[in-house]
């Protein structure tokens, strides 16, 4: 599903020097995998995830997504490809403060060609599935961290993506809440969704079937479990 070839990401330091965050990444990730990206803080995990999620495009190298050469796409084509395939769970949730839970869930649908009534049906189903129907009119600040992350996950999967990217989805949660989310991912994975998560926790990584270790921008252990 994902094929990275010699992918590099750097930030200019000034005076013509560059700081490399990702170095020479060559990686194949197959459809149906549940991958955990691990590594110390600052290793480049989030950076990698944002590149995979096509938010960031300031990199060099090759990135094939289902045979599509992402590195050759225009911004608009990239956005379309992303909208059709990828759901993203942010480390900081990134729920919109001025919108209710319901409205937050609706955002991804509003940018896809989905009619109003169908949208309402999908949001309703999702609220059901995550058992947050009672929270639909609340604002993010009225929710606990766990509930917020639950909404963020719900928002990531609402448009039925083939690939879920999750950046430390349980980082700010109690272990019981974290487990809930991991079980959800496992279930989604079993249903065919490919999942790539960043995690520090061996336990969380245990829910997946593959670990990619990153260190100072290098992939050190691209082996299967």
């Amino acid at each position, binding site marked *: 599903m994902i094929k990275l070839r010699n992918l590099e990401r750097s930030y200019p330091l000034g005076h013509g020097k560059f700081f490399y965050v990702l170095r020479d990444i060559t990686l194949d990730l197959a459809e149906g995998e549940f991958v955990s990206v691990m590594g110390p803080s600052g290793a480049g995990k989030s950076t990698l995830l944002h590149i995979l999620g096509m938010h960031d495009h300031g990199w060099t190298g090759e990135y094939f997504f289902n045979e599509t050469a992402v590195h050759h796409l225009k911004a608009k084509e990239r956005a*379309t490809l992303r909208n059709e395939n990828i759901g*993203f769970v942010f480390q900081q949730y*990134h729920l919109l403060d001025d919108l209710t839970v319901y409205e937050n869930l609706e955002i991804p649908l509003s*940018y896809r060609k989905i009619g109003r009534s169908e949208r309402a049906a999908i949001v309703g189903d999702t609220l059901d599935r995550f058992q947050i129907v009672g929270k639909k009119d609340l604002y993010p600040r009225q929710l606990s961290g766990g509930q917020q992350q639950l909404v963020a996950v719900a928002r990531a999967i609402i448009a039925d993506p083939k690939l879920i990217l999750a950046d430390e989805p349980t980082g700010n949660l109690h272990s019981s809440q974290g487990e809930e989310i991991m079980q959800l991912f496992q279930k989604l994975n079993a249903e065919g969704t490919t999942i790539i998560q960043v995690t520090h926790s061996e336990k969380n990584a245990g829910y997946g079937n593959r670990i990619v270790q990153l260190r100072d921008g290098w992939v050190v252990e691209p082996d299967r479990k």
Partner: protein
Amino acid sequence: MPASFEFPIPLFGLQGNQFAGRADIWKPVSFTEDELKQRGGRSYGVIGRLRSGVSSKQAQAELNTITANWIPRFKENYAVETGFGARVYGLQDQVVGGMRPALLILLGAVALVLLIACANLTTMLLARGGSREREMAIRVALGAGPMRLLRFLLIESVLLSVIGGVAGIVAAIWGLDVLTAVGAKTVPRLREVNLDATVLFLTFVISVATGILFGIAPAVASAKPELTEALKEGGRGTSSGARRNQLRNSLVVSEIALALVLLIGAGLLMKSFVHLQKVNPGFNPKNVVTAELSLPLLKYPRGKPVIDFYAEVLRRVSALPGVQTAAFTNVLPLSGSNTDNSFHIEGRNEMQTKVFPDEEIRSITPDYFRVLQTPLLRGRFFTEADNADAPGVVIINQAMAKKYWPGEDAVRKRINFGDSDPQKIKWFMVVGVVGDIHHQGLDVDPKPEFYLPHPQRAYRGMILAVRSGQDSRALISTLRKEIQSIDPDQPLANVRTLETVAGESIAPRRMSVALLGVFASIALLLAGVGIYGVISYLVVQRTHEIGVRMALGAQRQDVLRMVVGHALKLVGIGAVIGLVLALLSTRALAALLYSVSAFDLTTFLFVTITLAGVALLASYVPALRATRADPMIALSHNA
């Protein structure tokens, strides 16, 4: 008038050259026996100072009694049904009254512009206050008391408004020169306008006071930040932020509404002006030069000497190279002067018909209508043969023909002007009907007019009108020489082209249109800047949201639509309010409109679309910036 001359009566407590430029010489009025018997002419105005304690109402009552007494005494002239009487006007109303609606509207426009500027200032300061909430919170956290904070903010807004006030006064000093130059002939007493200490002080106080008032409000709003919230969230969607957004939005909405009112007003006036310029005055003012002549009574007694002098002038002027035709008239169209005369129509009994004819009278020489190029509709023009001894003849205009002889041919009908001795009554036969001329103004419908040949109604003061092939101004010195060769003492006064005369007649409108246009443009600009400011701030404020939305699938055009849509919503609300306000207020303009309804749909539409266009443009720039934002920055860890 020499600088040393002072009008004998102190007016409004003012002495000095208030009539400079209007008259050079004042002479006592005196009438001959014959003239005193004449009751048909209405060309004198009476000016009087009321005894102290007497109101103009009392004066009016007294005049009513006097004129009521005349009516039975001079039945011939003032039958009850004519509504004959005298009206008392205050001199001030008379002098400046005509400009009153226009000046009031301009004053209103200035107030609106000031309001818009205030709204703008507040919006800007609100944005600043918003972006400095953290700074303020930190200051408070470090121990700055509220008074201290307030003082700090106050100094800032006072400084801003003082700078603005000073800049405004400098602009006013320049602007005044332009204004007096443009409006000198238009607005009575404009010459006397200057920026005296009172005006400067008042303006300065208003600008500084509004600056402080509107500057301090947002300052107060941001001086009370909820500490922990501001420090923690870094200005991201806090509730006080939402309140400020609401205030900012409503300010922009009011700016748009007010600007729309001004723009519609200016639009209506402009349309009136365009219509007015398209009005056919009934004559062709191009390539005609005019000059006034006035013969002294001693040198040119009544009758023949006057007639001969003017005939001689015409003979010589017509022979000049470059002159096509030349003629005299006693009043020039659109020049502001007028004379009227009552008359009787042959075979009509006024007591029965209750119609007491009294219409505009002009005395002209034969080629007058050829000079003006006013069309002859029926009959003939005057000729040399229509002299003092010939049978009386009169030419009337179409309006007069329609009024007195509707459905009939007016030619060959006869009128007279009465005489104390019925035996001496002279009849004047209508020999021609000419097209109507807008005499009192392009915006005033032509009135019935009748023309007598100069030899049959000789005036001592006449206006020469000369049509030439090309630019008629080249003729002026030759004309002067020619007159001097007939009578070296005879000056040529008030020399101007007919185009100037016509132009001056719409000068007050031109000035209102120009000024209101300037104010409306400023309002449009301010509204544009206001929208730009608010949307720019909105984009900055919503960087995070925009980043998230883009990460969740928003394309560039989605972001563009969202930002511009927000602007359009503000514009929409503002436009609706503005349109309602305009509907309520354009009625005040009605007096200044010409063949344009105060609710002219095209103007309303066009102006609204223009404003929406400007608003769209003003929001598009920051919106575009928003779409270029890198979502990565918004989504980065420290967001």
